[in-house]
């Protein structure tokens, strides 16, 4: 009797690596996840490792007895792999084990009898030597064994496919598809090459099984790990390290001289330490990356929520603003009719009061319209009537209208004519008119003496309008916040005039929506200020 000879051909090394990979993965799997399904999957992987080592012996031994023992072991472990997989499928898919009690009992019974027949009889695998040690002498019950294996394999895939078609959870569906591809492929190839074809004396690809088999634990582990990418990177690192260590280990065992042995052993230890560090760092990095990914996801969700809240707010403001228009319509209608002596002539004081009510109503209406504009722009629903317009004409119109208002305060209001001919801009004439009006009215409001000059010029591809006053001015520190929501030059209100500060924010929104810019320049308090806005020229 000779001991099995393991020769060191590349095929053998690779088969050994497959087996070790299976062992490592199964162990890692059991250590990382205590779920029953993981335990069954790991068990089937241990079976796979045993099957691979049996194959290694079977392919290398010159001894007929050992070959027969290895052949029996191959068929026992084969049955074990599939049986463990069935239990994995049932636990992983959370199928009712009690309802399938009879079926599972039958599977165990079949497994036990198949194993008994293989170990104690020659009915499936015969120990009587075949003509060549690399061929198996099959017993009369072998076709039954093959059928049993095929049926169990199909049962396994039936469970998975049924579930993957039924499930609506995308993650679960993806997991199942991985398992289906990753396990189905090697098992069906294995069934064909190692169970069916050999029976017809076709052994040419008997050695291929172990290589294909290694696909399966990798896929299986990948699939069942909750965070797919997380584990696959660690596993790849582990696999790579294991592969290096195995190759060097073989090299150590093959060392010719003592010096070579010591040198290579040193290398092996070094590589092992580095591998360990590598795996740890990959693990840590992935952990950190996962954390970041989670934070980013949380942020994204928070952002979506904020956007929703903001939209709801815009909707609400829009609804309320429309509602406000109704009572204002009545106030406007009645006051205007009173002003027009609809119900008979009024005294001078009465008329003055009614006019004040009317102008208050108009101010309130304008505020509501500004609010509506802002919410529309913020919601991306602005309704501009964009046409080529001449800003100069628009500005002239506003100045004419506001001349008396400036005059009442003893201020001058003039337009400084530009020498150059200004190009047209594409804009909503009404809105731009309101912006100019807003800037000039502000200037009048905040200028106790002197006056306001409006000028226009072309700057690169923009037409720039400037409203310069000799008024209160704005401190440098205040200027950046002037166009933000509800900001006002500090102190301005307490010293002179009221207002909500909505106007400039609104103007900035309108100009921004026209792809223009709005800004202010002021040398400081009491040095006057100049408000600018620019609008792009039509190309």
């Amino acid at each position, binding site marked *: 009797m000779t001991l099995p000879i393991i020769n060191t051909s590349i095929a053998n090394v690779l088969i050994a690596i497959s087996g070790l990979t299976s062992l490592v993965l199964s162990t890692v799997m059991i250590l990382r996840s205590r779920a029953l399904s993981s335990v069954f999957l790991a068990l089937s992987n241990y079976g796979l490792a045993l099957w691979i080592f049996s194959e290694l012996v079977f392919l290398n031994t010159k001894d007929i007895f050992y070959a027969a023992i290895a052949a029996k072991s191959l068929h026992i472990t084969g049955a074990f792999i599939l049986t463990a997989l069935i239990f994995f499928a049932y636990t992983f898919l959370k199928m009712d084990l009690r309802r399938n009690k009879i079926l599972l009992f039958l599977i165990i019974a079949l497994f036990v009898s198949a194993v008994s027949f293989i170990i104690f009889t020659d009915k499936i695998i015969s120990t009587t030597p075949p003509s060549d040690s690399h061929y198996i002498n099959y017993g009369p019950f072998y076709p039954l064994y093959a059928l049993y294996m095929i049926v169990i394999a199909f049962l396994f895939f039936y469970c998975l496919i049924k579930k993957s078609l039924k499930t609506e959870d995308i993650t679960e569906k993806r997991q199942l598809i991985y398992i289906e591809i990753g396990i189905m492929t090697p098992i069906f190839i294995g069934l064909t090459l190692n169970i069916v074809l050999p029976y017809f004396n076709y052994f040419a690809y008997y050695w291929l099984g172990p290589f294909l088999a290694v696909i399966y634990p990798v896929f299986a582990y990948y699939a069942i790990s909750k965070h797919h990418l997380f584990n696959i990177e660690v596993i790849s690192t582990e696999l790579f390290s294991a592969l290096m260590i195995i190759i060097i280990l073989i090299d150590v065992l093959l060392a010719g001289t003592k010096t070579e042995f010591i040198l290579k052993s040193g290398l092996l230890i070094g590589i092992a330490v580095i591998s360990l560090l590598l795996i740890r760092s990959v693990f840590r990095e992935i952990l950190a990356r996962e954390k970041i990914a989670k934070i980013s996801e949380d942020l994204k969700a928070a952002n979506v929520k904020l956007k929703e809240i903001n939209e709801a707010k815009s909707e609400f403001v829009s609804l309320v603003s*429309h509602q406000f*228009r109704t009572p204002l*319509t*009545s106030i406007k*209608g009645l006051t205007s*009719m009173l002003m*027009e002596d*609809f119900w008979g002539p009024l005294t001078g004081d009465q008329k003055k009061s009614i006019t004040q009510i009317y102008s208050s109503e108009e101010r309130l*209406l304008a505020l509501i319209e500004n609010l509506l504009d802002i919410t529309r722009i913020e919601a991306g629903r602005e*309704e501009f009537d964009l046409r080529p317009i001449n800003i100069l004409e628009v500005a002239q119109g506003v100045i004419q209208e506001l001349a008396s208002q400036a005059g009442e305060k003893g201020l001058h209001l003039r337009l400084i004519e530009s020498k150059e001919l200004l190009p047209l801009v594409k804009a909503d004439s009404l809105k731009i008119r309101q912006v100019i009006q807003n800037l000039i009215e502000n200037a009048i409001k905040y200028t106790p003496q002197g006056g306001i000059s409006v000028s226009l010029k072309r700057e690169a591809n923009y037409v720039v309008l400037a409203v310069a006053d000799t008024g209160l001015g704005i401190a440098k520190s205040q200027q950046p916040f002037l166009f933000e929501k509800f900001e006002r030059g500090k102190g301005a209100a307490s010293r002179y005039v009221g207002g909500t500060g909505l106007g400039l924010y609104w103007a900035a929104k309108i100009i921004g929506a026209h792809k223009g810019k709005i800004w202010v320049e002021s040398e400081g308090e009491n040095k006057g200020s100049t408000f600018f806005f620019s609008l792009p020229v039509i190309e």
Partner: protein
Amino acid sequence: MAKILIIEDDLMISGIYTSKFKKEGFEVESAKDGKEAYGKLEEKEFDLILLDKALPDVDGIEILKNIKTNPKSKNNQTIVVVLTNVSEKNDVEDAKNLGATDYLVKAYFTPTEIVGKIKDILKPNIY
């Protein structure tokens, strides 16, 4: 004189318009909701309809569609002016596409201004 129908749910506003239009010599009827409006529209032919969009029982746009497309309607040739406080761009386009002659925002105009606009619209029909 021109016969106009004011379809408006706010009674204060419809009262203001009614008195103003009557003073200007128009023959005015009013309806406070869709149900009343359909009743009046079946009853007789008007020269012009002032139609609010936001009504308690039906969208004014539905009434407009019915006036313009119902073959039995006595008023399918009548001028319709939408007079409302809801003014999103889509609404204006929808109304014009369905045959509204104009779309006015109530809060923007005094009754005198509205009467002026209506007279302008009716002018070609009077002569």
